[in-house]
């Protein structure tokens, strides 16, 4: 019997994959998978040449500062997205909570209790989200929306909206201001998280089940997987990344306030999507998310350097998401023909 591809293509049902295709289509297909690399490279090249001061060490540090907290959230949230659960809106509450806890508690009792408290909070967020989505099979968007309300509500009820700030001279503050060459520590944390979570997703059984769940939930369960635990795991990873992001943010600004992470939910998702992770689940990777974060941060940075007003910045971001995915979609289509 012949080459299986012929058979697939003949199968009326399976959306036939296209392997034997013209070189032109190959190029397009390559573009589809790597378009974001190209875009990022082009953007950076243009910026280096065209935008004065972009290449300066200080500015590179600023880009890193932009990328770090949102990036750490995004690499974590990639797990939830790949598991096919859209996104985790509650990172907004999670980041603020951990930042406030870190500074408020450490001012009173020192860092250890503060970090422990933050970890407890993160664990609670992750487990509540995970149980509701994984075991109760509830819709992730609404679950995390409700935990956002609950989280912020509790945070504001107990902390009020007051600004908490640490002493001028503190390990936290010096970490927040610290740099390795032009690279702030926060960016190093982001890279570390990317490597760590990247390996977790691509090289461990847990990561494997997260991806497999994103592709086919029932087959994964019947393959002998406790899918509930897998989802809880995905949300825990997100929650702990959000916690780290909160720490980084608190260290950087040496202040914390319950409103400091507004907009992190969709900004993180935007980065993940621009990176090329599919919201249908299954397809995607952590390094890609990092790339998406870099792209978005560089873009914002360039627009600010050009003194372009906030409105245009938002338009640019939106336009970019649309174009990036359009190219991707069109290329895939061409790849099929």
């Amino acid at each position, binding site marked *: 019997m012949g080459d299986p591809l012929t058979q697939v293509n003949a199968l009326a049902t399976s959306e036939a994959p296209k392997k034997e295709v013209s070189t032109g289509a190959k190029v397009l297909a390559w573009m589809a998978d790597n378009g974001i690399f190209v875009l990022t490279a082009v953007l950076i090249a243009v910026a280096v040449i065209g935008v004065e*001061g972009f290449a300066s060490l200080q500015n590179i540090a600023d880009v890193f500062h932009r990328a770090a907290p949102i990036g750490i959230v995004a690499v974590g949230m990639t797990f939830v997205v790949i598991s096919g659960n859209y996104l985790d809106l509650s990172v907004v509450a999670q980041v603020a909570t951990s930042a406030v806890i870190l500074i408020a508690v450490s001012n009173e009792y020192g860092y250890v209790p503060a970090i422990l408290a933050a970890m407890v909070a993160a664990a609670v967020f992750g487990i509540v989200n995970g149980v509701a989505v994984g075991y109760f099979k509830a819709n992730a968007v609404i679950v995390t929306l409700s935990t956002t309300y609950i989280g912020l509500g509790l945070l504001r009820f107990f902390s009020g909206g007051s*600004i908490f700030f640490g002493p001028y001279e503190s390990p936290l503050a010096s970490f927040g*201001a610290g740099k390795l060459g032009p690279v702030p520590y926060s960016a190093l944390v982001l890279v570390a998280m990317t490597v760590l979570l990247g390996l977790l997703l691509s090289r461990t059984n847990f990561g494997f089940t997260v991806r497999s769940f994103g592709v086919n939930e029932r087959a994964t369960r019947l393959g002998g997987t406790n899918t509930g635990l897998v989802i809880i795991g995905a949300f825990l990873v997100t929650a702990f990344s959000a916690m780290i992001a909160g720490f980084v943010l608190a260290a950087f600004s040496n*202040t914390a*306030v319950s*409103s400091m992470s507004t907009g992190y939910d969709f900004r993180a998702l935007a980065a993940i999507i621009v990176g090329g992770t599919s919201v249908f689940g299954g397809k995607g990777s952590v390094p890609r998310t990092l790339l998406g974060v870099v792209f978005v941060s560089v873009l914002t940075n360039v627009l600010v350097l050009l003194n372009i007003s906030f409105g245009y910045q938002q338009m640019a971001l939106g336009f970019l998401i649309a174009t990036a995915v359009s190219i991707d979609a069109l290329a895939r289509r061409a790849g099929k023909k």
Partner: protein
Amino acid sequence: MRKSRLVLAPAAMLAAAALVLTGCATEDASTGSSDSGSSDSSGDTGGDTGGDDTLKVYALLPQGNDQPYGTTYLPPMQAKAAELGIELTITNSEYDGDKQASECEIAVADSETDGIILWPAIADSIRPCLEAANAAGIPVWITNADVNPEDTGLTYGYSGTDSYGQGAASAEMMCEFAAGAEIGIIQINGLTGNSVASLRGAGFRETVASECPNVTILAEQPGNWNKDESQIAASEMLTAVGVENVQGMYAADDSMVAGGIAALEARGLAVEDFIITSIGNTFLGNPLVIDGKLDGTVFQSSGWDGENAVIGIYRALTGDTSLGRDDDGSVLYMPNPKVTIDNATDPSVAPEW
């Protein structure tokens, strides 16, 4: 399976309701305000008890425990209300004009409402609320940010700051310190689209343009009231216009100016060499003034603001002031002393938030 559903939801509902009640209880304990929540509901269930001696006032605010200012604005307000026997119902529209309008409808529709304290989320869109309140004969006292001139006739009075004026005051200090020298500055604004942010921004921009054309605003970006975002924005603006061209900086509040200063320090620049002004004189800003890093800020007293809102509506309810603000005392401007290193330690300007 229908059964399981129909049984479960109410059960969960009860649990949730229980939580809210405990919530109210804790609220009373924590804020020490008159037992608004519970008495209110019991009042409704058991016919019309209460209400005669206590005045019921709705405070329609665009912020509360979600913002530093609101957080310190509320307690004095509640304390004063308790003292004057006013029962406060506080709402927070989170600067969503539509939400506030709907809250206003609720306040007007509530038969027990005696008066309304209104802090406009968006001054331009508050007219219908005022007209509705008047139609229902409910006096409205404006707090913190005033309504447009053409609408003042619909209110009993105003107490609070003048956001535009604060921007202007900050600008005046900037001009004074610049002392005629040709300098370039960068400007950090509040949350884009937020009315306080745009008023302060306009106040600063226009005053600088008229008072001291020698001061040039080289770049503007929003800092969204956040220190971290302001620090990045400031640093990027410095890169954009070139540090050597910048001799000063203005930020619409102290958290953001702190970010701006951090940006300068991060570049190892001597902050003292820059002319920096701001608004707020908060716990964050005041020390910076004392350290000589922040040259001037405008004191805004959240305590004064909250307290006088209640005093104002009380006077309206007791007939001391009437519709249209034509009698004296119907407009109380918050004293906005300029705070510099000379008076920063003065108890009269001790930071409140």
